[in-house]
């Protein structure tokens, strides 16, 4: 339990860092770190499937996409950067305070919730589960993917034309 | 015949309205012709009884006329004055502007007055009565440029009182279940009293009694003079008193001791005194006369209000007498105005030598109105005194006091206009025959009705009362010697008072100054001259104030609709536009806040 708590606190801190930092690269790294920490928490809570997805997609794929996009950007002049950093701090300073207050407040409430989670039924394999129960959702996912494909097509063609 | 006497002047009036001003003499001819024919018809109709009824609008509103001795008498009087004054107008109005309108209104007035007198249905009478309001308005408005205000004033006052009359007629009709005048006989109790008072307001306002009088002195200055001679001095008095007599004697059953009678006498006494006090201080020939026109109405109302035979006969006799001498006086004023160009007493003087016939006519009329024996005013006033004394010494006192001031003011008027000296006096000539002839005829009638009073009393007035006369005969010399004595003493006092005033100021016009500037009275007079006591002006002030208030309310409502609603709407709109800054994080915060509120709402319900 203590390890879990520590991990959660670390995760929150990493999340805060990703928001508060003024450099895009650092933010990406912090986001990846948050995902990694979340993965660890998920492993701790006996959810390896979710943990693997989280690690591969959020910590891996998205970070790669972000970093590749960032590499295409220009560096900001130092003066503007400093001014911007000042503003960012001003804008986000209530966030940690708010988080702290909410956390402390919730700790006072402390009402244990007893909920019967649904019993895992024949979840032996994620593929079987998906295919047997949620075929329609898969169809929906295919639609989302198709739409994404067209999106890439549209946006990519735009880059080719130099717009 | 009975329809012809209404239609003839009506058609003649409409024709003369269409005759252009370029054709000189045509309108005058039409007017003269139609009024003289009217006089002949009225004379032929006299002593006849005719009922004429055609169903008209339904609901008991019939085209119903009734000719009997009373209406025939008034008809004859109207026709006589109509003829005399149309002759006078030909000379007086010659060459003035808007003549077609003048003659049209004049003839229409005669037509409507005939109709109102003959009508035997209250609604029908109201129809003619309202027609008179229109011609009254038209007559005043064609006068001087400032006449517009006076016309409005007259229109408003008469209009309001006509409204009362209308209500009264409606009430009477519903109480009596018929509008036919000869079939109505109501008691004056409860709603009946209200109906009577409403009708009475219409009648005495038409006659020009206080407090509905205040347009008359203004009209005297603004309107054409023949209008004054025919409308306030003659026809309106005749009509008003005719209708008052009708409602008092026929339509309602009044008792001598009733409160209504007391009310009438009070109005009469107050009108006599207040109007004559105002007349006393006037410095204008016509304005002075106009106040007397009001004051004399008081005598008639007082006389009829007594509800005793002597008073009623006196009131009616006074009505015809007043119509005679008052129109004679107005005509003399017109004659003076025509010859000198002014009616301001301070500029007049010494006309007695230059205009002897006018002067003589004036003297006859003036002594008549003052009640000097043996002229007609003396006899009618004596009868009113007699009646008033029977009902209470205070009314008698008011009547006698009024007589004193009447005499005093005519002494002043005659002195200022016809004696003494003025710059214009020597150049002035006597007026033309067309102006003089009506005056001479009317003055002659004044003398005749006084010297040989059985003629009017037996032929015209006493038949009106019928059974109510209680078999008495008022013709001949007055019976009460003490009243006559007091009258003579009062007249002598008026002469003394005049002598005192003239000695004090040295001028005829200043003869009443010691009363005018007496302590206490002088301030009251000032206020009265500034129209502080004019019910119309007071009403107008209140109405103005109300109008401003309502205007403010209306503006406020408009403001709410036009400015506030639109303003608030656009304030909201711009606030909404301002808050939609396009910043995504703001929108996210809104959504989250909305969700939070929604969750809380769901939880607490």
């Amino acid at each position, binding site marked *: 339990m203590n390890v879990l708590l520590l991990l959660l606190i670390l995760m929150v801190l990493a999340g805060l860092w990703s928001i508060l930092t003024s450099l895009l690269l650092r933010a990406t790294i912090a986001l990846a770190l948050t995902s990694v920490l979340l993965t660890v928490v998920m492993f701790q809570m006996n959810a390896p499937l979710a943990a693997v997805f989280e690690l591969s997609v959020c910590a891996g794929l998205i970070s790669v996409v972000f970093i590749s996009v960032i590499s295409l950007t220009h560096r900001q002049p130092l003066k503007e950067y400093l001014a911007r950093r000042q503003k960012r701090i001003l804008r986000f300073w209530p966030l940690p305070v708010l988080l702290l207050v909410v956390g402390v407040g919730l700790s006072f409430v402390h009402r244990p919730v007893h*909920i019967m989670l649904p019993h895992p039924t024949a979840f032996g394999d994620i593929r079987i589960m998906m295919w047997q129960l949620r075929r329609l959702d898969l169809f929906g996912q295919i639609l989302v993917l198709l739409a994404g494909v067209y999106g890439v097509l549209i946006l990519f063609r735009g880059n080719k034309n130099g717009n | 015949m009975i329809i012809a006497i209404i239609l003839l002047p009506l058609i003649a009036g409409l024709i003369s309205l269409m005759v252009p001003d370029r054709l000189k003499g045509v309108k005058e001819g039409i007017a003269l012709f139609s009024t003289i024919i009217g006089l002949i018809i009225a004379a032929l109709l006299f002593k006849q009884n005719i009922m004429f009824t055609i169903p008209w609008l339904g609901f008991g509103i019939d085209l119903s006329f009734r000719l009997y001795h009373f209406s025939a008498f008034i008809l004859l009087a109207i026709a006589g004055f109509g003829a005399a004054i149309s002759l006078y107008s030909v000379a007086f109005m010659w060459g003035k502007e808007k003549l077609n309108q003048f003659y049209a209104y004049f003839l229409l007035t005669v037509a409507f007055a005939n109709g109102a007198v003959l009508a035997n249905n209250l609604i029908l009478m109201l129809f003619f009565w309202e027609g008179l309001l229109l011609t009254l308005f038209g007559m005043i408005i064609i006068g001087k440029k400032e006449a517009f205000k006076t016309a409005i004033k007259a229109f408003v006052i008469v209009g309001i009182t006509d409204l009362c009359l209308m209500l009264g007629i409606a009430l009477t009709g519903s109480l009596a279940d018929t509008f036919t005048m000869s079939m109505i006989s109501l008691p004056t109790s409860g709603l009946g009293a209200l109906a009577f008072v409403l009708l009475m307001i219409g009648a005495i306002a038409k006659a020009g009694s206080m407090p509905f009088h205040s347009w008359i002195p203004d009209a005297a200055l603004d309107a054409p003079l023949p209008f004054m001679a025919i409308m306030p001095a003659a026809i309106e008095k005749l009509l008003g008193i005719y209708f008052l007599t009708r409602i008092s004697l026929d339509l309602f059953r009044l008792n001598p001791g009733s409160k209504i009678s007391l009310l009438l006498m009070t109005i009469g006494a107050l009108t006599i005194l207040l109007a004559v006090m105002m007349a006393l201080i006037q410095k204008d020939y016509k304005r002075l006369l106009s106040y007397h026109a009001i004051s004399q109405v008081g005598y008639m109302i007082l006389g009829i209000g007594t509800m005793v035979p002597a008073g009623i006969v006196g009131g009616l006799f006074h009505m015809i007498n007043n119509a005679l001498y008052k129109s004679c006086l107005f005509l003399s004023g017109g004659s003076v105005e025509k010859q000198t160009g002014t009616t301001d007493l301070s500029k007049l003087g010494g006309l007695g030598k230059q205009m002897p016939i006018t002067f003589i006519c004036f003297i006859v009329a003036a002594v008549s109105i003052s009640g000097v024996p043996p002229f007609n005013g003396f006899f009618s006033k004596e009868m009113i005194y007699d009646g008033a004394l029977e009902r209470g010494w205070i009314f008698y006192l008011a009547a006698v006091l009024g007589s004193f001031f009447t005499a005093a003011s005519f002494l002043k008027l005659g002195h200022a206009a016809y004696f003494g000296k003025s710059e214009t006096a020597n150049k002035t000539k006597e007026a033309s025959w067309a102006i003089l002839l009506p005056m001479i005829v009317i003055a002659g009638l004044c003398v005749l009705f006084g010297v040989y009073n059985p003629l009017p009393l037996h032929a015209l007035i006493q038949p009106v009362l019928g059974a109510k006369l209680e078999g008495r005969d008022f013709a001949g010399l007055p019976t009460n010697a003490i009243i006559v004595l007091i009258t003579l003493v009062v007249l002598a006092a008026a002469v003394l008072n005049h002598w005192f005033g003239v000695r004090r100021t040295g001028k005829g016009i200043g003869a009443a100054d010691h009363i005018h500037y007496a302590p206490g009275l002088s301030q009251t007079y000032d206020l009265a001259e500034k129209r502080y006591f004019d019910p119309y002006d007071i009403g107008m002030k209140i109405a103005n104030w109300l109008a401003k208030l309502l205007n403010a309310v209306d503006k406020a409502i408009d403001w709410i609709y036009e400015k506030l609603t639109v303003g608030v709407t656009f304030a909201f709109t711009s606030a909404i536009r301002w808050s939609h800054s396009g910043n995504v994080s703001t929108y996210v915060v809104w959504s989250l806040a909305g969700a939070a509120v929604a969750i809380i709402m769901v939880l607490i319900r």
Partner: protein
Amino acid sequence: MNYLLIFVPFIALVLVNLLPKKLRPISSFLVLLLILAAQSIFAALAPFGLIRAVGAVRMEHLFGFHLLIDNLSLLLLLSAGIVGFSALMVAWHSIKDEDDRFNFTNLLFILLIGMNGISMLRDLFSLYVFIEAIAVSTFIMILLYKAREAYEGALKYLILSVVASVMMLSSIALFIMFCGGTSFEVIKLSLVSSGALARIAIALFICGLFIKGGLVPFHGWLADAYTSAPAPVSVVLAGVVTKASGIFTLIRLLTAVIGFSPATKDLLLIIGAISIVIGALAALGQKDIKRMLAYSSISQMGYILVALGCGTRLGLIAAAFHFLNHAIFKSQLFANAAAVEEQTGSRDLGSLGGLAQKMPVTGITSAIASLSTAGIPPLSGFWSKLLIIIALWVSGNYFYAVIAVLASLLTLAYFLTLQREAFFGQVSVKVSSVTEASAGMLIPAVLLSAMTVGLGLVFPFVIKYFVR
């Protein structure tokens, strides 16, 4: 039939993309047009028993999931068919580039499949997935021209959609926690004995749908997205997409799963009233035609919501009728706006004026749609608004009924402003050489306004469609 509604467009989409490149745009256009027309006719006639859904049982065995059609589904199918048809017609004339047009058609296929799916689904999670499919294809549609402002609009839509997704997903997670499943029957059964957590889940899901439907104060994305989208996209977006993913799902959820509790009713009424008033007021201050129409859309959504908030059968009927009416007149108004923009190159009310002389058809049809929106008899919008107000009054919500009446004055005010500034008055310099739009642009406008008038005139007959 149920399955065909999903699979026919899907297979058509795949097949069209396999065709030679030259044939693709025209064939995809024609195929989609055909599908949309067929769907509209089916949905319009089905409730009268003219066409029967057949073969449902066998299909269910084949696919392992089931789709159900009821009258509510038909409502969305009809709206989607009509609006999709109009958008496609507008697209054919306003999108000049062939590739763009082809991409738009493909995305419209996906949208159609998504909406058809939503209309027939009986599972909360599947619903979410299809809503996401619609949302993703809509982002990309908005970005069709890659205009700078379109990026902004799409980004706002994306961000708020993510917020909505988070809400809906957490709600679904909560439902799974205490219901053990996501299908409607399961949730409905376990909601009978529900606690605070269930209420939170419901409120969260509803709020997610509010964001999707663009109701105040969840509407931040709507105006920018509508305005920045290309003309045909805004037609389909305003006409049916946001309504399908937001309002329709809400109606489905309320009627099939959670029912009307006092708290939900209050929530619907309050959010609805706020949307009506703020949407109308905001529309009043707009200078851009499309932006004005976008805010008007928010206001009209509010009307549907307050009608739902009555919780009565009459309220439901009124909401459904207004749903259809709104699909018709709003897509028509956007089609008009597209025609105006196409011909004048401007959407700014300040620079337009007197267009009715130059573009009579557009002017007249736009006037009809405006009056219908403002609720002027005998147009169809009048009847649905009347029904809404009656439903509010009968159910005792007098305050909201008064708001609805007063706000329809505001509606009239901003539409009169629109008509006066754009179509009536002096011909402004800018539009002096403008001509009427091409026939393809006018067909949807004329068709839709004919529907508005027709529905209004045969209202007593039409209302049976909804009462059923």
